């Protein structure tokens, strides 16, 4: 099985009748994902891209056996949508919605933990396992089945990097986009054991950003518990302190969360460091060759 999702994943789309929900339902279906239901209050009985829409998640789950949800509903309603899914028994939620207040995310994260439900995101690209399934919005064109795992805090930068891996003739096992918000459901440290245990993954590409300490914590985990080769890239080496670059929580505050500290920690943990995105494919090839000859 790949990481978190596989051919038996039955996807529910919350907010399926919105523009993004509809577009990405089509893309997920094209990728081969089994999108079995949509949920939008008041739109029950209709269908989107041939997928039946229900008024409630409870009904959707009862009728279709959905076991994962992809949430597109607007930020003010995202907490409610997630809690509804968890209460209906769904245990994996990919939250694509951006601009969810972190106070709401705190509630969602701890509610999920209490009930044994995992969140990927919010404000994230989601999960894709080529040839198996996809829950999220990563463009289909960047993938080819293979043995490289990718875990990232970024969105489009992830697509750029995954695409670069494909361009040199390699493929991916699972790509996991965690999102870069201040509170995320799944961090690098939470994701690493999943890739360690995944028999389809031979090597992991870790894409980090300045700000916070998630990469330093990941390095600590890699050093002690992760046994596959790691190639890492940290974006924002040249970003000035104190300015927020884009929507995400990428900010260097009080000298913490700098690229230098993250790169040093990952290097000390044995990761190969790419200085630029386009150095990643070559480092991946090197690492795979090394692992093969050892």
């Amino acid at each position, binding site marked *: 099985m790949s990481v978190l999702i596989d051919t038996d994943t039955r996807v529910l789309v919350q907010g399926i009748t919105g*523009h*993004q929900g509809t577009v990405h339902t089509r893309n997920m279906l094209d990728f081969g994902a089994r999108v079995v239901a949509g949920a939008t209050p008041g739109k029950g009985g209709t269908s989107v891209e041939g997928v039946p829409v229900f008024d409630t998640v409870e009904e959707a789950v009862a009728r279709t056996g959905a076991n994962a949800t992809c949430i597109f509903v607007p*930020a*003010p309603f995202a907490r409610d949508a997630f809690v509804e899914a968890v209460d209906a028994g769904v245990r994996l939620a990919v939250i694509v919605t*951006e*601009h969810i*207040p*972190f*106070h709401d*995310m*705190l*509630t969602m*994260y*701890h509610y999920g933990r209490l009930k044994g439900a995992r969140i990927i995101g919010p404000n994230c*690209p989601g999960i894709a396992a080529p040839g198996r399934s996809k829950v999220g*919005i*990563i*463009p289909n*064109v*960047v993938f080819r089945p293979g043995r490289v795992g990718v875990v*990232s*805090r*970024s*969105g*489009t*930068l*992830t*697509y*750029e990097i995954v*695409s670069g891996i494909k361009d040199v003739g390699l493929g991916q096992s699972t790509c996991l986009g965690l999102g*870069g918000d*201040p*509170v995320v459901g799944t*961090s690098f440290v939470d994701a690493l054991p999943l890739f360690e245990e995944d028999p389809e993954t031979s090597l992991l590409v870790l*894409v980090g*950003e*300045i700000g*916070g*300490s*998630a990469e330093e*914590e990941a390095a600590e985990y890699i050093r002690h518990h992760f046994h596959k080769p790691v190639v890492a*890239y940290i*974006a*924002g*080496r*040249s*970003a*000035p302190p104190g*300015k*927020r*670059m*884009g*929507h*995400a*929580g*990428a900010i260097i505050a009080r000298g913490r969360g700098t690229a230098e500290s993250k790169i040093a920690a990952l290097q000390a943990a044995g990761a190969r460091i790419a*200085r*630029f*995105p*386009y150095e990643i494919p070559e480092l991946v090839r090197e690492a795979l060759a090394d692992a093969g000859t050892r």
Partner: protein
Amino acid sequence: MVKLAEWRGKEVFRRYGIPLPRGRVVRSPEEARAASESGDVPLPGVLKAQVLTGGRGKGGAVRFAATPAEVEEAARGILGMEFKGEQVRELLFEEKLAIGRELYVALTLDRSQRLPVLMVSPHGGMEIESVDASEIVRIPIHPFVGLSGYERRRALRFLGLPPGPAKSMEGILDRLWRVFLHEDAELVEINPLAVVGDSLVALDSKVIIEDDASFRHPEYAEIPDDRTALEEVAREKGIAFVQLEGNIGVIANGAGLTMATLDVLQQFGGRPGIFLDLGGTDNPAQVTEAFLLMARAHPTAVFLNVFGGVTRCDTVATGLVEAMRRVPAAERFPLVARIRGNNEAEGIRILQEAGITSLRQLEESARAVVAAAGGPAA
């Protein structure tokens, strides 16, 4: 991120019952003098510039006054001064209290634990970054439970306060927690929190409200921030725009890709200085707005680096071509484009018809932009 000026933060504190010095906001020397003469603000008093950057005491933006004449003079001295690039337009004029110990208290988010954290230190009145970690107690708070009695007692024990101030502190901790929660704050900080007789008084406030919660707090929407004029326009149009030193403009989508682009440009000697993050738009008009905004910042050259996910390549290309048509000849700039991802072929075709080439590799694109901007910086 809405950073509240000290007096706005104190207005929030007042609503929640956190004790404050008597005082008011004044906007002219005459108004300051009148406030002291009427007894609104008892003397001796302190006048503080209402700016968003720290270090006011050392920078001459805080002054003391014992008579109405001194009040007027101090106000005249501070009003209109430029403090670290920010024009001083408002003063907070408060009574000067006879203070004892100065403490530190704050609530913020611990990202790794995904929990709010209460931070308390007996060393207030200085930058908390310069206080030794062993002198700060950090108490994580579970959001489902809130601040518990035993957690408050733990903070009090750490501070070693006598009974009077300790009782005052308990109330303040409880109220500060409610501010953090109900106002959707990223940070609430009182530094210093001063012992005045048997009570505690908040001498300063630092309150940062989360932008994303603005749908619950329209009252914070109108508050001015430290953005530049163009950054303000961008914000109104829903575009993330950052202006720094440098002459190359970068239009990308997503924070990670924007930063990676910046890293590469610097590597080749470029000086990127204007950043525009399209985010996840699928409206060509939004892309056009973004380019027109970029033109107003007068870049030497612009690098468009977009990976189409939510944003489709053809949307970006259509918006870009329209913008280039509308930018006045005098404001035109050399453009290097690199668009990939969803609907890539269609996007590249639209650009080609308008005479714009889309390059494939990040490395060659970056070199081309730096060259177009006049070559590597010395």
